[in-house]
C-alpha cells in the first residue's frame, strides 16, 4: 500500500495489523520515542500510537524535536 510520509509517497508492504507504533519501528524513524506524529492533519497523542491503524492513502508527518538556536 502507499502512504505519504513527510510529503513523499512511500510504498510499504500490505499489513492490516500495522499501527503507528509498529510503523515507527518498521521505518526506523529517528527520535522514534519522542517524535510527534500527525495523521491526516491531526496530531496524535503518544498514547494513541499503539492503537491507531495505518491505512493506504494516509498522510503522515513525523515532526522532530529541534532544540538548537545558538
Amino acid at each position, binding site marked *: 500500500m502507499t502512504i505519504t510520509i*513527510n510529503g513523499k509517497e512511500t510504498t510499504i508492504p500490505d499489513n492490516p495489523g500495522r499501527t503507528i507504533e509498529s510503523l515507527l519501528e518498521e521505518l526506523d524513524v529517528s527520535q522514534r520515542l519522542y517524535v510527534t506524529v*500527525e495523521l491526516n492533519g491531526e496530531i496524535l497523542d503518544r498514547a494513541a500510537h499503539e492503537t491507531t491503524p495505518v491505512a493506504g492513502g494516509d498522510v503522515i508527518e513525523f*515532526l*522532530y*524535536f*529541534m*532544540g*538548537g*538556536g*545558538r
Partner: protein
Amino acid sequence: MLTEEQIERYSRHIILKEVGGKGQQKLFDGKVLIIGAGGLGAPIALYLAAAGVGTIGIADADDVDLSNLQRQVIHFTPDVGKPKVESAREKMLAINPDLNVVTYKEWVTAANIMEMVGGYDFIIDGTDNFAAKFLINDACVLAGKPYSHGGILQFDGQTVTVDPGKSACYRCLFPEPPPKDAIPTCSQAGVIGVLPGVLGTIQATEAIKFLLGKGDLLTDRLLTYNALRMKFREVPLRRKTTCPVCGDTPTITGAKDELDALTVCDLEAH
C-alpha cells in the same frame, strides 16, 4: 513623527505600499524581545535594528566564544569574552543609533520570564535548549503574547509563529520536552553556519509583519527547511484541545522550569 533623516534611512520601506510612513512609525513604536543572542538571535537583532524596530530587548547570559563566530554574525573576533548582549547592543546601535536596546544578561527562568515578556509586543525564541523553548511558549501563551519559535540542528531548521489562543502552540506539537540528552544539541551534533541566518531572518520577518499588521503570519503551519536538499516544506497544524497550556483544560497555568530538560550539557553549550 519621522525626521527627514529617518525618511531617507527608511525610504525603501516607505515606498512599499504595505509599509509607508505609517507602517514605519508602527515599527518604530514596536517592541520586540529576542531571547538568545546566538545563531538565530544574530540575524534577528541585526535585521530588526536595521528595519527600525524602536525598542528591542535582547536576553542572554553568555559571553562570546570563538566557536560562536562561525554563525553568530553579530559578534566579531574582538568581541570574544564580551557579554553577548553587550556585543549585540553595540552592533545594533552602530547600524541604527535611534533605537532603544534593552539588554538582559540573564537566562530566562520561570522567575523572570513573565515580567520580561510583559513589556513587549512580540517575542522571538532564539534559544538552544528545550527548557527555554518550552518556558518561552508557556509564558507567551499565558501572557497572550504572539511569538516566533525557531529550532535548528545540523542542516535542518523549523519555525512556527504562535498567536496564543488562536493558533497551535509549541505544546500542541510537543506536549512535553524530550528527556535529558535524548536529542543532541548543536554543540554536540554541529550546525552549518548559514542555517540560523535563514531561519532567523524568517523569524525577524514575522516580527516585522506582526508590527505592520500586514500579510499572513506563519501560524498553524510548521515551516521546515533542509539546507542539504534545499527544500522548504509546510506542515499544516491545528490547535489541540488537549494541549496542556492552550487547550480546553490546561494543566499548566503558570510559568514553570522544565528541570528535566535542563542538562549540564545544555548549560555548557550556552
